[in-house]
């Protein structure tokens, strides 16, 4: 098997808050090879964004990566110096943030913010860099990119800003892009366009992609493999088709059943009962057990992430095989 582009092993990222330690990412492992697309799904607060920031080394205090390894093309990113890491960021490894309204610096022009991203890693003239920036804008479907380069972020809509952010991520043709719900703010047509563009890019250049989202439909169309996160842990991983068709973990099952398109019209949506527990007061054992329809005494014990089927791992004592 060739070396994976990214191999995350037992990653732990904790926030040391005044009220206690929030284990935002706990024992998370996954890997993906070049050109592969991994979908990372889970409800709000499950630790998807923190996982992304951990990989980029952008977790700010009170947060800290406290354990695990992040092997990027064989190099452990957690062991790199700040300068080595700076060289990786934006160059080999890029991220598109969740909130497009806040991603771009309000007082700098778009061209400034794009050209600097190129020049931080390559010694190229401003003219060349500008040309590349313009091409990148064109690629993500921004009309009259030459003119748009001279604009400020506030002159763009949210969707346009997100496209600019995606264009910035594409600038240096990184080996891995972490896209944090990048299309949530976009309308359906543009969303389709961008998905298509990103897919093409990954296929052509072998860029690996981690696509963080709430939207299972997007994952279904885009990713090959999926990781379902709950309360900081990966509770199920496997190929997209398998997991979406035949979820083994009760949480994945609930998540999939709560998607409207999955239900017939007029029928009540199946929802996961209860609320996401606070990370500071997680139930002992399996964190999902208080909301789980099939929990029993055994679930007070922490399950382990085990291979339930080939290429299919699950964090549960009672895989839902029979009801699937």
């Amino acid at each position: 098997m060739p070396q994976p582009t990214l191999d995350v092993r037992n990653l732990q990222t904790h926030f040391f808050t005044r009220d206690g330690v929030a284990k935002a990412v706990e024992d998370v492992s996954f890997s993906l090879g070049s050109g592969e697309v991994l979908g990372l799904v889970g409800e709000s607060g499950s630790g998807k964004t923190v996982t992304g920031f951990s990989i980029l080394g952008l977790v700010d205090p009170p947060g800290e990566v406290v354990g695990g390894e992040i092997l990027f093309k064989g190099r452990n990113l957690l062991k790199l110096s700040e300068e080595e890491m700076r060289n990786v960021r934006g160059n080999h490894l890029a991220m598109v943030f969740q909130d497009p309204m806040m991603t771009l610096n309000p007082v700098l022009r778009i061209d400034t913010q794009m050209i600097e991203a190129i020049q931080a890693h390559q010694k190229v003239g401003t003219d060349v860099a500008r040309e590349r920036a313009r091409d990148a804008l064109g690629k993500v479907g921004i009309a009259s990119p030459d003119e748009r380069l001279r604009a400020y972020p506030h002159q763009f809509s949210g969707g346009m800003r997100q496209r600019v952010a995606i264009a910035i991520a594409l600038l240096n043709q990184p080996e891995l892009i972490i896209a944090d719900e990048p299309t949530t703010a976009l309308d359906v047509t543009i969303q389709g366009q961008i998905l298509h563009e990103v897919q093409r890019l990954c296929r052509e250049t072998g860029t690996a992609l981690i696509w963080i989202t709430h939207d299972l439909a997007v994952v279904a169309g885009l990713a090959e493999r999926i990781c379902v996160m709950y309360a900081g842990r990966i509770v199920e991983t496997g190929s997209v088709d398998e997991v979406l068709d035949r979820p083994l973990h009760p949480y994945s099952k609930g998540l999939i059943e709560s998607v409207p398109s999955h239900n017939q019209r007029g029928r009540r949506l199946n929802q996961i009962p209860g609320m996401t527990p606070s990370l500071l007061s997680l139930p002992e054992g399996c964190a999902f057990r208080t909301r789980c329809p099939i929990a029993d005494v055994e679930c007070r014990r922490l399950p382990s992430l085990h291979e339930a089927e080939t290429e299919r791992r699950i964090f549960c004592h009672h895989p839902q095989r029979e009801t699937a």
Partner: protein
Amino acid sequence: MTVFIIRRLLQSIVVVFLMSLLVFVGVNVVGDPVDMLINPEADQAEIERVIRHFGLDKPLHIQYGHFLLNALNGDLGKSFIFGMPALKLILMRMPATLELAFSALILAVLIGIPLGVYAGLKSKAKVSRTIMAGSILGFSLPTFWVGLMMIMVFAVMLGWLPSTGRGETVLVAGIELSFLTLDGLSHLLMPALNLSLFKMSLVIRLARAGTREVVHQDYMKFARAKGLSESRLIFVHLMKNILIPVVTVLGLELGGLIAFSVVTETVFAWPGMGKLIIDSIHLLDRPVVVAYLMIIVLMFVIINLIVDVLYSILDPRVRLQDMKT
């Protein structure tokens, strides 16, 4: 942009007019300058001659009308004491004050911004706490006391710096400047530092607060995610954002710096207009006081206008709104 400037200009004219009314009436109801102007042994005829000469026998609104008419022609009256145009008197002293005020402003920015940004970035470090404690002192210690202490330490005890006057000056385009000679510079240093202390503390606080707010913004994280160097993050991404409040506040404070350099000028015997106005108030030299106040008003108005323009250059969001109006 031009529409914006024209509108602001019209507003400014109204402000200046209203202030002229307030200043003129205010100054003219205080005290009786005749007592000061006339030899106590003078007879009644002499007194009346003087009163008529200065137009003090006319009702106040007529006096104001005259004043306004003359003011429009650039004549703000003659000094009772010096017998020369008040405006000319003040303008002669103005370069000294401006030089002092601008030096103080530059010191406040050059020292205040780096210290404030540092304190914002490393808010837990000992150095940062020392900086912040220093800025509290800068706020709370009275200017004249600090000035006197500076004189005592650096002029009297150590003998490093001169304590009074402007020193050797150079004439540039008809204006005497101290900062171009070494001697002048040594005379300028202490008063400028003294005058800037308060503003410097203000800049430190603004820069620190701005830094602490900006570093946690998503766009700073995104900039880091692009792999930018630390220096570019600080000097471009951070700096451009914190300069907006700093420029606004400092611009507005510049007027105050000029107007209230009175204390520093008095302590260091700096021959600027602040010292002139104190003397004129003592002698009830009304035209000089009125002219001084009008110049200060005018200066505030102009500075505000410049700040607005600067602000819109720094902050593109403001620029857009102006274009719409």
